[in-house]
């Protein structure tokens, strides 16, 4: 049976090549779409996920990271006085204009944090050091946006909100989901760049580390009782809310997922067509097998084995193609992620897709009249 399944599958090499092409095309399409989805979601919540804060305190009704709203510094002191809070750090996220050395203007997101605090700092520093943003006007930008921001090396200068800025280092691979690159600087510098309208309201977030012996949930409860007009989320909660907003409220994620689903449908259709054509080409052989006493189950196993062979080989080629695409995306504007879980998941998806595609053929084979073997 195994031999028949393999031989029939590989016998017509051109048809098999078409089958494999269909599978590879479908899988790569799905991988890219899911990879983009994962890349997007990871990108949207990057700053939260890397913040090392147990809790995020945000102004009431701020649903996601990129729309932080300023609130009074007094709340910072209320937080510090709350039982279970070991550390609290002021944090700013706000949009500003970046004036390039050549005079061009770009929109950026300024992220203000306290250097050395361990909370809310940038990561993946490729040049310079986080502490260097303590210097007046010192900023860190990502290497991906050098060209966009008109800088190329440490020491390059620009203006943010009509205030001088000097590049003191670069991060690597910190993308912004919006078109505005992140610019990291000290909390103090960030006030100059974002120029809060009110002297009182000068921070958008408070990042909190819980004290030993307290769970984030306990501290969250304590904060809710003591600090008014704010929402307190655990890091994961805020990350999820931000991801959900960008992926589903804006429709960006739905578009990507729909494309992935289309890839799956196209894949099933292509594979179904090729497996069906191969089955029809050998239909008399299936009739002969039935006449010889083979059960329907026996025939299903032949077809399913062919489907699994197609899936595994198609998966192998798709992984090679996807590997190069993913590698290429690391230097591009859109991040495509392909974690191990996704690789394993794609194998099962490929097998599912091919077996689903084989169902049409299985249905056909089930209905074969073995008496056909006597017809000429």
């Amino acid at each position, binding site marked *: 049976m195994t031999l028949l399944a393999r031989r029939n599958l590989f016998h017509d090499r051109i048809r098999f090549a078409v089958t494999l092409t269909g599978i590879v095309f479908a899988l790569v399409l799905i991988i890219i779409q899911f990879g983009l989805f994962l890349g997007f979601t990871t990108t949207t919540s990057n700053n939260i996920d890397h913040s090392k804060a147990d809790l995020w305190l945000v102004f009431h009704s701020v649903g996601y990271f990129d729309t932080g709203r300023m609130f009074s510094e007094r709340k910072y002191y209320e937080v510090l006085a709350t039982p279970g809070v070991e550390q609290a750090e002021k944090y700013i996220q706000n949009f500003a204009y970046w004036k390039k050395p050549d005079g061009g203007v770009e929109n950026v997101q300024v992220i203000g944090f306290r250097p050395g605090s361990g909370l809310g700092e940038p990561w993946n520093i490729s040049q310079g050091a986080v502490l260097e943003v303590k210097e007046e006007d010192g900023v860190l930008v990502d290497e991906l946006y050098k060209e966009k921001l008109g800088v190329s090396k440490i020491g390059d200068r620009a203006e943010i909100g009509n205030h001088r800025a000097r590049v003191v280092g670069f991060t690597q691979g910190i993308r912004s989901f919006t078109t505005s690159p992140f610019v990291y600087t000290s909390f103090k510098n960030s006030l100059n760049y974002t120029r809060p309208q009110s002297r009182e309201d000068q921070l958008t977030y408070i990042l909190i580390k819980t004290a030993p012996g307290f769970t984030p949930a306990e501290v969250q409860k304590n904060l809710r009782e003591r600090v008014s007009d704010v929402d307190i989320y655990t890091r994961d909660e805020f990350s999820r809310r931000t991801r959900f907003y960008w992926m589903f409220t804006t429709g960006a994620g739905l578009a990507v997922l729909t494309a992935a689903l289309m890839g799956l449908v196209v894949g099933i259709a292509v594979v179904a067509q090729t497996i069906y054509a191969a089955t029809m080409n050998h239909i008399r052989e299936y009739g002969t097998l039935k*006449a010889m006493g083979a059960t329907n189950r026996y025939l299903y196993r032949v077809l399913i084995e062919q489907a699994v062979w197609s899936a595994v080989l198609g998966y192998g080629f798709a992984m090679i193609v996807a590997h190069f695409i993913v590698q290429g995306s690391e230097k591009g504007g859109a991040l495509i992620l392909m974690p191990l879980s996704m690789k394993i998941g794609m194998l099962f998806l490929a097998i599912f897709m091919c077996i689903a595609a084989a169902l049409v053929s299985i249905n056909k084979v089930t209905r074969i009249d073995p008496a056909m073997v006597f017809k*000429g």
Partner: protein
Amino acid sequence: MTTLLPLSGTVIRARGLSKVYCEGATELRALSNVDMDIYAGQLTLMMGPSGSGKTTLLSILGCILRASEGRLELLGEDVTALPEKELPRIRRKAIGFVFQGFNLFPTLTAAENVALAMDVRGVRGDQARKRAEELLQEVGLQDRMHAFPADLSGGQKQRVAIARALAGDPPILLADEPTAALDSTSGRAVIELLQRLAHHHRRAVVMVTHDPRVLAYGDRILHLEDGRLVREEAAHLPPGSTRHFRIGQGTANFAEEFSAKF
């Protein structure tokens, strides 16, 4: 000519077999009230013009097609009322098929074709391979075991098909015009092989044929016309020793009367 074997070797007993095909409101009667017995150790030829119901009868005897009416016993088991899912078991256990067009698997070698028939019966690996080699040796193809069907002559293909039909060691071989596509030399080799399988291995071989060259090899010749069994000849009897059926008399037990002469 070989002597007929005793009647205790009845392997197929058919009584009142009829087959009606329905196409919309139209009914086509392909078989009418056929009674017959097939014996182990005999090569039985079935002859008749096109559309006389030979292949339909062969399909019913092979449990590939169900009769519309009548009763069929294979090896003493009444298969008439067996559920559909039981029929493959009967085919695996009792029947080997040989087809006019060979119906070999083109992507498998001769030995693999035979081994596949073992695989269908749950015999795999070395056991299947060894048995395939034995069977191909038996049909004289020991030198062509690893050849693909495309590289075999028509006669060789049919011998592979016969070896495949023997894979389950079935007591019944049903052959549908196995010599029709062969030249005279190959056709003779195939019919001699089928005769040997009947006479030396006590198999019941039923062969549908139009080929006058094979008449001399049959132990019995059954003639069908318009879906009815109309005449039977014992090939080895002197000319004129034929038994005519009365059309529509389903109870005519030719076999017992015929055997009484011997």
